[in-house]
């Protein structure tokens, strides 16, 4: 079953396209990472999926329904981000009890254990929490709700690294025990990469790729060597990144579709072959120009 189906989905704000012609599907019980730079349209996309915002054109189905104004989607979905508005006069404990009323799969035991583990106090107010603590609390709500679709929009904003690690581990354990469809958005891949099954990479509102993490890891290959040799090898291939170091050495991240023998020969010709870390690859893919920041300073 497909939990999410988007077809040529667009969202226009005034004259700008926040999202353009997005088409993808997300299957049941997968953890998908939504990766893109700040302002790439991640949050807009997620809010459309959550039913908060209208689509402009195209089609969007969540749990086989248009999510906007759908009670079915709302009751089977939870959207967590650091902007979550919670009543100011409820204590954290009261908020957990309120959440319990809304979500039929809610696990109070889990919520309370996490609550204690991250050393929250019953009578604290959501408004008095620091940014990191607030994100942590929201994340607890998100995990304990056990919704069929869990959307986490930059869930770790403000968390320190040990809390982040704990959170990811908690997320994974929860997922193993109670598989569900999870979408995590982030501008960084490396932290969550191992957690993910699929990656959805967007750039300026457009879908760049939707692949499994493993495919992404094998998608590109890094070659380093004499500039002219490199130039010859990569002819006709898609180059994601190119950088010239020293007098005559070039590094390229290039699409990995070389036959083994060719690589073997390249090695024999003094080309260093390496794999491209997915994180770097995402940066290359989402860069506005091929050369990255260097192009700005390149006045020739």
């Amino acid at each position, binding site marked *: 079953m497909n939990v999410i189906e988007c077809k040529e989905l667009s969202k226009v704000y005034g004259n700008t396209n926040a999202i353009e012609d997005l088409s993808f599907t997300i299957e049941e019980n997968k953890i998908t990472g939504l990766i893109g730079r700040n302002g790439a349209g991640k949050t807009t996309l997620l809010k459309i999926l959550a039913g908060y915002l209208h689509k402009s054109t195209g089609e969007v189905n969540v749990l086989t329904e248009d999510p906007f104004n759908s009670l079915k989607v709302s009751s089977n979905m939870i959207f967590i981000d650091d902007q979550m508005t919670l009543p100011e006069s409820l204590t954290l404990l009261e908020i957990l009890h309120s959440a319990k009323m809304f979500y039929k799969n809610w696990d109070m035991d889990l919520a309370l254990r996490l609550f204690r583990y991250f050393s929250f106090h019953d009578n604290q107010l959501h408004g008095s929490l620091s940014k990191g603590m607030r994100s942590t609390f929201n994340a607890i709500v998100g995990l304990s709700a056990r919704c069929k679709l869990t959307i986490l929009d930059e869930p770790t904003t403000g968390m320190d690294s040990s809390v982040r690690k704990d959170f990811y*581990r908690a997320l994974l354990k929860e997922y193993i025990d109670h598989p569900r469809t999870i979408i995590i958005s982030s501008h960084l891949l490396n932290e969550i990469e191992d957690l993910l099954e699929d990656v959805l990479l967007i750039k300026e509102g457009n879908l760049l790729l939707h692949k499994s993490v493993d495919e992404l890891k094998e998608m590109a290959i890094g070659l380093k060597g004499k500039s002219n040799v490199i130039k010859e090898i990569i002819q006709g291939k898609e180059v994601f990144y190119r950088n010239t170091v020293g007098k005559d050495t070039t590094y390229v991240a290039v699409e990995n579709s070389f036959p083994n023998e060719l690589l073997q020969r390249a090695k024999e010709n003094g080309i260093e072959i390496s794999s491209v870390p997915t994180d770097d690859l995402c940066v290359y893919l989402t860069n506005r120009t091929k050369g990255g920041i260097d192009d700005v300073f390149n006045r020739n």
Partner: protein
Amino acid sequence: MIIKLTDSKPIYIQIAEWLETEILSENFKTDEKIYSQYQLAEMLNINPATAAKGLNVLVDEKILYKKRGLGMFVSIDAKEIILTKRKNETLKNMVNELVLEAERLHVREDELFQMIKTTIKQREEDV
């Protein structure tokens, strides 16, 4: 962590290699049940789908076999298959690398053989 997840090799391959090593060192014996995808995911803090992929590599290579509803088990020929594979692929690749590096450093053929012989002798003495 047993597996260095920052390694640029795909994780499922790292998992497969780690399990092979475990089988070679007899931590898992023939017909013994190996970790499930969920156990692996928990242990290594990775997505269960990735873990499953790692296991499937070993099933494809007939190192593991599936029993429906029970999990995956070490096949009788597991060790042999691994050894052969490592000899054919890993060792071959390493030799390849060695030869290439030797060429780059202008080491002659007999010099290279000599170095290998010395290394083997030293290990024998150590044991």
